[in-house]
């Protein structure tokens, strides 16, 4: 078992992760913090680090944070499980889904 401190936390609001940051690409420019209509993010207290997702439950999946990011790959969408769409391969008939 991993040795990890267990804290007394309430349930985390769902979905908790509307986006995923790649800390290797994100340089903490905070463009996403500014373009978000909702103020889902706040700047990271540590300069140069990816922003912090503070209000994930308010995200409306508008997408400006991802679309306007000047560093491609620094931030990507992470659709809630129940929102992921289905499609079908015309040649094989196989049903597919965004399962990343």
């Amino acid at each position, binding site marked *: 078992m991993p040795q990890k401190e267990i804290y007394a936390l309430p349930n985390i609001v769902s979905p908790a992760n509307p986006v995923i940051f790649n800390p290797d690409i994100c340089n903490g420019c905070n463009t996403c913090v500014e373009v978000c*209509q909702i103020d889902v993010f706040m700047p990271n207290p540590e300069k140069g680090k990816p922003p912090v997702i503070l209000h994930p439950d308010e995200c*409306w999946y508008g997408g400006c944070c991802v679309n306007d990011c000047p560093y491609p790959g620094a931030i990507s969408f992470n659709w809630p499980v129940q929102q992921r769409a289905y499609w*079908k391969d015309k040649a094989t008939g196989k049903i597919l889904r965004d399962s990343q």
Partner: protein
Amino acid sequence: MTKWYDLLEKYGKPTPWPYPIRYDEEQEIETDVLIIGGGIAGCWAAISAARNGVKVALVEKADTIRSGSGGPGCDHWCVTPANPHSKVDPDDWAKRLVEHPVHAGQPPKGPVPLSYSNGIGTQIQCRENYDTLLEIEQMGGKIRDVDDEYPGAEGRYDDTKFMFSPRMSPNHATEVTIRVWGTTFKPALKKECQRLGVKIYDRVMVTSLLTEGGVQGAKVVGATGFNNRTGEFMVFKSKAAVLATAGNYSLWMLNTELAGYTTFPGSRTKTGDGMVMAWKAGAELTLMEQTGPHMIGTGHKHTWYGGAGDASYENIQLVDANGKKLPWPLQGWPDGGDMRPSPEGMEKIIKGIKDGTYALPFYGDFPAMPDIERRVTWKLMLGEESTTKNITNSYEKGGFNPAKHLLMNYNLIEGNSPAHWRMPGRGGPVVDWDLKSTLDGLYVAGEQMFAAGDHSFAASTGRYAGRKAAAYAMHTGESKISRDQVSLEKARIYAPINRSDGIDWKELHAGISRAMQYFCSAYKTELLLNMGLDALKEIEEIFVPRLYALDPHKLMRGIEDLSLLTYGQIILNASLARKASSQVLDFYRIDYPEIDPPEWNKFITVKLENNEVKTGELPLNYWGDMKANYEAQNKDYTGVYKR
């Protein structure tokens, strides 16, 4: 390390609020024209007022760079009959639109006896929409296929490189809807505001209008607001104001979480604040009783983006699970972008499902489309539409390839919106030919103007309201605000931060929504509607005084709840005033079952006078002769701005 609880684990305590707290500070800003809301309508109003030579301040709840329903993008510049390829006359087209209700770009199906469209806004859109489009191009917006990505696409004109959508143009009969690269628009608008010296106040929520002497129904002389990051109080003093705020989407939604699932076809910020402040200031509102069923989220996001066969997909054949073609409109050139089968056609499809003729689920047959049309729909239309760029990107990242894959459609497997899930409609302030409300000094533009929630409507009416407000501001005297009115509003806004316990904004939101679900559903009676008013009054008197907010952001959400509460009261009062059912308004009174009785074919109005609700009425064509009145009011209109 990107989630709030990661920081909690790292530091062992909550992170301090990231912005300075300034609850005790107040800024007073004086301007000629105040623009409330920095979405599409607000930016255009600001630009047009500034171009007319007055001082302009623009206040926006988010950041103007991408705020508003049209902030992320726009793919259709609808209702543009003055374009050079149009086959219809702008004035005739305006008349036709007003005489036939049109929803979501669908062409009218046969004669319809009446419409509740805003004739003034429609006439403005038909006359000035093309000029507005050319002006966004001047600012750097992309409106033509200048990069030659789509030669050969149906609807593309090689001389102008305009690309037309089939919407309302069956077999190219009209050519009134132009495809645009709308993701380029909002940053261009903000930049133009800045170039013209518009003072922009981002992250400020406007909370009330100030009236002369603090009197309800008097001239509007400014507004109050607060910064939703710092909590600083703001007082704006103006000679004229343009209300360009959004609609309201969450009034009936119990759950404030899982936003992509069911809650918001519009963003969380759309809580009807503008309508409520106009109401409290004494402006007359109309069509507030009109509501509609809620859209349920399917696939990525909400219904319209859920899968093929919905509003964001054109020229796609729907097929059943065995590949059999469905008698569903193509949403293409043959049917003028029609999205839904006729009621009889839908009945046949449902019967076919039950008797085994058609197998669920249905799919959009992207691979069967010609490559060029597939690219236009997938890349241009969906790639540029409001919030769909990240949806197509997500599909592609997940492995979807429109050349090989059929996109699942959720029609008839998603179920219908329950009777108690409604969405506020398109009601709003009554306006005259200057887009002035019934209050002096208050102009109105965009979505909240009892009209279609359409990008180009917002743009052209914003542009129009801005120049009218500027003209008024140039000829009106100095405004004087009432300090008493400011103090009362300040006390109302800050009350929740002086409590640390009680109920938070989410619980209050749910309480208001539940009252609306119970008492203002698809089934309405005098008794239920009155019970609704009592329920909201009880919430107002008992639970609102318990609302607390831990930081400026949650304070904003709490104040939005207060807007929702009042908005609900307006809808209930308007619903009580219309003692008849109406198919056009999707408004059904069980106690008045006759549908659209002729004596009720009129606008019902509501307003506050000395804080008492007064109802009234206006004829459906209260604007008179649209062409003649437009021309009489716009003799000085100079057309496209010369930069």
